[in-house]
């Protein structure tokens, strides 16, 4: 018999939401000792379904029909007090952002013992001992200090291990994991996934794992359910679904995952447009009297951007890749080094000389929600750049319409505001804005990281086409190796401010020189299986 059986579950959203139902007639099962993944894009209802199981739907969201059977008992009809007793003991849940998921004002020890003592009558000292054992089991070092520490003093990986430790502390039969690795670096992600697999095997526990990444599905799941717009479109053993997807949406999802095997060869005889030599940028926290240490975000980095070529900069958080991009485009002022654009060093130029140069380099930003002024119409956003350089209003408008067409949007929508567009469309608008000044160099700072995977594939294709059409030099920042392989001719790997290695994409991916690059490649979820 299935441990968890969700039957025809329907979840309604509060009035005024963008859609009436989060989940519609969802049915799926989790058997004992098995890992089941629910995979889908944003708005698929996968997360809320998981929340419904543990009874933590947000205010205003209700399960209106169906049943959730756990070991035969319908959780939807259970009394609140009985449900509370199950939480943390029979069913446990871990969440996406471990920093936000831990109480910032309580010590780690307290947060772990709190859960144990909520279900068992033992003393604080005994609970603390169990907590220490658990944390050690999760692979954490220096446990005694950790117990007295606060969440903000730990790294992202450490925090997620603490969360898992808490979830496993009372040996639940079912662990629900809601995108637990999405906010983590790729190497950390690989470790956490391994940890969950090990814990599941050792404790003979069932896991319901929510994710948007089919690579993770390939690595983790025994069975997988694909959700779209609140419905389950496909359900089955992982091998079967991956090998022969029955539903067209599943096929599209799998196809959209960058395989990381495209390996564009660098074009020959391409002209260097931007040369960066020994760029360094340091940050100092705190004010005048602070004794905080200086952080060297970018340490003596050199690179060349050539016309018609995309250079990818890959790294985890803290690698300095974003800071590097911002220094090259002078959103930040580098401390030392040079950035040569057509022979002129723009690294330390005053704003007056810099301004005319700005037309040559433009940027596409990461967050589709905050990269466009919410109070400005799209048409005005596009013509703002050319207008500030004195271009004629009528001409600018005509070009804006052309550019919108170029990025695949209808020029008639120019009068609308950003919030009327989807995330992918907003990124296209951001690209159009950058192209309006007819730059030679385009810097893309994680342009697809915030997008769903199917939309991501479209935008990547668009970026590649635009680069070709306008013969741009492109600097592409990303943390996702698979994405880099999709659009980049050359790849540069960064770690803690320094360049680890650099070369044509094929070389980096098939014959990496450094251990770190090898670790990055090994950590890619589902590599080989997809």
């Amino acid at each position, binding site marked *: 018999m299935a441990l968890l059986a969700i039957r025809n579950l329907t979840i309604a959203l509060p009035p005024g939401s963008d859609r009436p139902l989060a989940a519609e007639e969802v049915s799926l099962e989790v058997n004992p000792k098995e890992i089941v993944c629910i995979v889908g894009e944003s708005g698929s209802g996968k997360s809320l379904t998981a929340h419904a199981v543990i009874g933590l739907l947000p205010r205003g969201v209700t399960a209106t029909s169906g049943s959730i059977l756990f070991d035969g008992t319908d959780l939807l009809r259970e009394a609140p007090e009985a449900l509370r007793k199950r939480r943390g003991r029979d069913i446990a849940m871990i969440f996406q952002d471990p920093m936000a998921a831990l109480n910032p004002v309580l010590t780690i020890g307290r947060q772990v013992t709190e859960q144990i003592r909520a279900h068992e009558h033992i003393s604080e000292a005994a609970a603390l001992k169990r907590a220490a054992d658990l944390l050690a089991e999760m692979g954490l070092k220096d446990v005694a200090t950790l117990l007295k520490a606060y969440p903000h003093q730990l790294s992202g990986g450490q925090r997620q291990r603490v969360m898992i430790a808490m979830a496993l502390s009372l040996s639940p039969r079912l662990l629900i994991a809601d995108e637990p690795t999405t906010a983590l670096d790729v190497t950390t992600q690989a470790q956490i996934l391994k940890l969950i697999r090990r814990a599941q095997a050792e404790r003979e526990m069932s896991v319901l794992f929510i994710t948007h990444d089919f690579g993770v599905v390939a690595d983790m799941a025994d069975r997988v359910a694909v959700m779209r717009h609140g419905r389950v479109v496909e359900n089955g053993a992982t091998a079967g679904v991956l090998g022969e997807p029955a539903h067209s949406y599943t096929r599209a999802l799998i196809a959209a995952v960058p395989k990381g095997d495209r390996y564009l060869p660098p074009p020959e005889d391409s002209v260097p447009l931007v040369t960066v030599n020994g760029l360094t940028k340091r940050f100092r926290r705190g004010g005048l009297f602070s004794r905080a240490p200086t952080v060297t975000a970018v340490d003596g980095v050199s690179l060349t951007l050539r016309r018609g070529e995309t250079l990818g900069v890959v790294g985890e958080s803290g690698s300095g890749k974003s800071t590097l991009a911002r220094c090259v485009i002078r*959103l930040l002022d580098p401390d030392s080094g040079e950035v040569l654009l057509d022979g002129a060093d723009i690294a330390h130029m005053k704003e007056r000389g810099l301004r005319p140069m*700005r037309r040559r*380099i433009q940027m596409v930003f990461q967050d589709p929600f905050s990269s466009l002024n919410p109070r400005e119409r799209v048409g005005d956003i596009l013509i*703002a750049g050319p207008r*500030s*350089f004195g271009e004629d209003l009528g001409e600018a408008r005509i070009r804006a319409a052309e550019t919108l067409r170029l990025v695949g949007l209808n020029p008639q929508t120019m009068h609308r505001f950003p919030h009327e567009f989807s995330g992918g469309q907003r990124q296209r608008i951001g690209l159009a804005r950058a192209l309006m000044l007819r730059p030679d160099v385009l810097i893309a700072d994680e342009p697809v990281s915030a997008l769903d995977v199917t939309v991501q594939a479209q935008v990547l294709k668009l970026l590649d086409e635009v680069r070709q059409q306008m013969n741009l030099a492109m600097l592409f920042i990303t943390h996702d190796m698979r994405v880099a392989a999709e659009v980049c001719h050359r790849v540069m790997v960064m770690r803690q401010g320094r360049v680890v290695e650099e070369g044509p994409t094929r070389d980096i991916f098939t014959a990496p020189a450094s251990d770190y690059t090898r670790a990055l490649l090994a950590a890619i979820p589902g590599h080989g299986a997809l």
Partner: protein
Amino acid sequence: MSFAARFFSRPATLFGFVVFAFIVVIALVAPLLSAHGPMAIVGMPLLPPGSSGLLAGSDVIGRDMAIGLAYGARISLLIGVTSTFCAVGIGVLLGAVAGYYGGLVDDLLMQITEFFQIIPSFMLAMVLVAFLQPSLSSTVIGITLITWPQVARVVRGQFLSLRSREFVEAARVLGMSDARIIFTQVLPNALPPIVVISSMIVGNAILLESALSFLGLGDPDLLSWGTMIGSSRVAMWVAWWTTVLPGLCIMVTVLALNFIGDGLNDALSPRRRN
């Protein structure tokens, strides 16, 4: 939902808006309400409301309370709005520059606002008005001086956070001048909290003005609600209407403004993403 729909959806806000509109109307038509002004002696002192055709009775020296209350509305609104205008003007200017440019200018502004936080502000206003000789302008100056730091702090915070938003960075990358960025990109997005705080400040200014007049530091030629309460103190125990009515007027006006402020806060909240 449109702004108007959101704004009026709360009953409290609607109430506040209607009441405030009513008070504004009264203030505007006050001179038309009667032939005699607020200072004219119309009968025996301390007549209860309703006697001799006096809607609100008469005060300690026999003036028409009702007309006094109507004229009081003019004074309170005038001083309230003028002080707010000045305080917000100064506060936005300084706060915007400090928040956008940071550095020394910002440090300086923070030191100044801290200074104003530490000084007992009401005492400062008291001293200022007293020594500049109590008048309409000195009251406005006093209130403005102790109010602008709060506005500057809020505006500074807004500009500081907006400055690092990606669309502002994009504007810089596009080569826009600082002034253009401040006016077309940052300010429109910083306006909502400024609008909300402004309505709260008008209410606060009215309270401050009434407090100063109560202590005898208001313009001696004008009869504001605070002055009415202050001058009727001696008669409080026997003629409750001389102090209760002006106080109610102040309370209702400020309450209405605060409700409006709350409504504005709700209506101008950023759209939530699902």
